[in-house]
């Protein structure tokens, strides 16, 4: 999975592209750790180009949320497809994460 990021003030949007499975976990965590080291702790995961997610990907996201919160930060999600959202809701992650239709909406959510 490709992981890039863009900056909107002190909020970082992490653009994910591809399959968010066990093979993607290390690259996502590495990027998040880099951002935290640079004091960027308000994140949005942009799922608009993610075509698949499983428990490894969602577990990684939960791990990132817990780490960010320990640094007084936060993580919101945006742009989930119907397919991805169904997995998100199946394991009740929607009760833990704030989710938005678009990254614009998520930015306004901060």
């Amino acid at each position: 999975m490709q992981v890039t990021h863009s900056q909107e003030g002190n909020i970082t949007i992490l653009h994910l592209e591809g399959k968010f499975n066990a093979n993607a976990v290390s690259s996502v965590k590495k990027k998040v750790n880099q951002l935290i080291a640079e004091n960027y702790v308000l994140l949005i995961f942009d799922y608009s180009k993610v075509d698949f997610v499983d428990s490894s990907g969602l577990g990684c996201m939960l791990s990132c949320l817990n780490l960010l919160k320990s640094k007084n930060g936060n993580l919101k999600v945006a742009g989930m497809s119907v397919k991805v959202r169904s997995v998100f809701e199946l394991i009740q992650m929607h009760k833990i994460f704030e989710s938005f239709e678009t990254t614009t909406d998520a930015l306004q959510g901060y």
Partner: protein
Amino acid sequence: METYQIELSNDLSQLDTATKFVTHLLEKNLHNPEKEKNIDDIELVISEACTNAFKYSDKTKNETIKLEINLNQTSIEVKLQSPGENKYIESIQNPSIAHNESGGNGNFIMKALTDEIQGQNIDQSFILTFKKKF
């Protein structure tokens, strides 16, 4: 029922190969109104099952992961064999949502999206089987 098999080297880098093998079979052979939903569900279950196999199987045995698919228009049966015994077999039969960042939800997903699932330790191997009706 048609039977399809693939053997994979015991490495997480083979995860996409495993899921593509199964989704390709379903794309080619399944013809029903719920086809896309069926493929999405099976792709997810295969990803969860294979991830567990690649992560937790015994790598010292230097053996492959074996995936067998039995498929017709009304159902799929999958058998996944990995080297070494599984110590957490009970959690497959009785999964829960763990909300645990290190794991716990994969078994829940597999059970939620299949009609039958079971794991057995046989002759130093772990065999996971599941069935789903379309």
